[in-house]
């Protein structure tokens, strides 16, 4: 049971950096840039798109950060 709990915890911890990326992907999909001929986006739509971008790229940066930290810890860099 102890091992199971810790495996679960590890999976959740590893998933933490994925959450903002997933949220970013969702928001970017939901609020795509306007195509030609479509009405301009509202302020709320622009803000949602921006939040999506921040979450997506920030999340990717976070994952990169964790990879760097782990490689550093293992003495690779």
């Amino acid at each position, binding site marked *: 049971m102890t091992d199971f709990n810790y495996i679960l915890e*590890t999976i959740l*911890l590893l998933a933490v*950096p994925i959450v903002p990326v997933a949220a970013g992907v969702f928001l970017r999909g939901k609020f795509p840039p306007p195509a030609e001929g479509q009405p301009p986006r509202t302020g709320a739509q622009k803000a949602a798109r921006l939040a999506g971008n921040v979450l997506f790229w920030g999340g990717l940066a*976070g994952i990169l950060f*964790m990879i760097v930290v*782990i490689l550093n810890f293992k003495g690779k860099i």
Partner: protein
Amino acid sequence: MKAIKLLAALLVLTPAAALAADRVKWEPDRPEFKYFTERGSYDEKSWAELAPAEQEKALEDAAEPAAARQQAVAQAYRPMAARWDTAQLRYYSSGLKNSDINAVYLWVGKQEGHELAHKLFTVREAVNKASVSGLGTEDEAALGQYLTPEAIKDLHSMKFASDLARKQAAGIKDKGPASGSSSKLGKLGGASPSKLSAGKLSGLYDKADQSGSPDMGTSAAVIGAGGKPGLQSGKPNATAARTIKYSAPEALQGPAPKSKAWTSDAYGITVETAQGTQAYRKSSEAEAAIRKLPPGSVKKIILYGHGSPGMQTVGDAVYDADGTAALLKDKMAQGGVIQFAGCNTSSIGGATLNPAVGLSMVARRLLYFSLPYFQDRADGIPAAQAREQWEKGWNADLARDTSLGVKGAVVCGYRTFGLVPGRLPGLTKLLGTQEATSPGVVAGKKACYQDGKEVPAP
């Protein structure tokens, strides 16, 4: 008749008075005198200078704690002398220090102390060998008298041995054996620990060295914070101020030309006193200079290198809370600052809304708990044992623990991984910081403690 009575009375009383006025001789084998030696209260010379009444009072005061201490050391020594099982091997090989060996020399006997020192030396060498090239038949035979067959078998696991060797090198104390034997000997029972100086026992150990005892300086905490104990030892009862002649730290040899290397090898110790600021690449040189400083003279010290929960490296030297406190406790000015410039040198602290700090917490938990926990489980270590060990260690707070040992000083560390721009490949070349001795700008969350309580960063 009256005169005869008076004379008789005088004859009876004179020897009694003479006896009462006699000084007690220094008896090194008596527990009270061992206690004085360990505390550094008296040596043979200072004891002889005491008035008989003072001697009597001192002996009376010491009788009870000395007996308790003798019993405690004897009890702790028994499992150390027996063949170690795996748990004991893990604990003793990384956790025993010079002060423990010295306690055995003093309280149990020189022969026993010598044998324990030799045993520890042999086992540590074997662990190192096992982690690199594995054990041969001869090594096994040599270890047979010190370890149980099960422990020797476990040493054959390169993973187990390399983990143990790493802990030995870093001075990371492992979980103690289940019995009460895990109690360390270096602490004084009943006495004021603040009065204990490892240096007071150095004479015993130095003599042992001369008789062929191996140098136990492989304990990293001891190496890291000043080599063998006793480097500051003077006369018992003498203050550091009286025994240490002040000389300012030696100046560095001119500014070194800027490096053009791409990657960083930055570490060092920077010491700030009233005489100015000096930076050292070699920790041994820094420690030697610090030892020469008068008490209360260090205004700020930065230990720059790699950190992990509970420890900080500076080049090859490793500093834990005990080792750092031993080096600096008499040297820091009131409110002086000890800065551990290394990752995770403080605990993670409370909840945060900062995503970078959150990610750092996650990474710390994964690297210092999850990873070693599952490695231990893969090595066959019981879940409860692995959990207890790593749950304690992953969130260790080096800064807070050090502040408890260096009263009055402000000790700072980082709650997070620290990002030092000067260490980034490319920027290192641009800034010429390959061999920098202080970090400059650090992106990380700092925490400071004074006497164990969190205080604002100075």
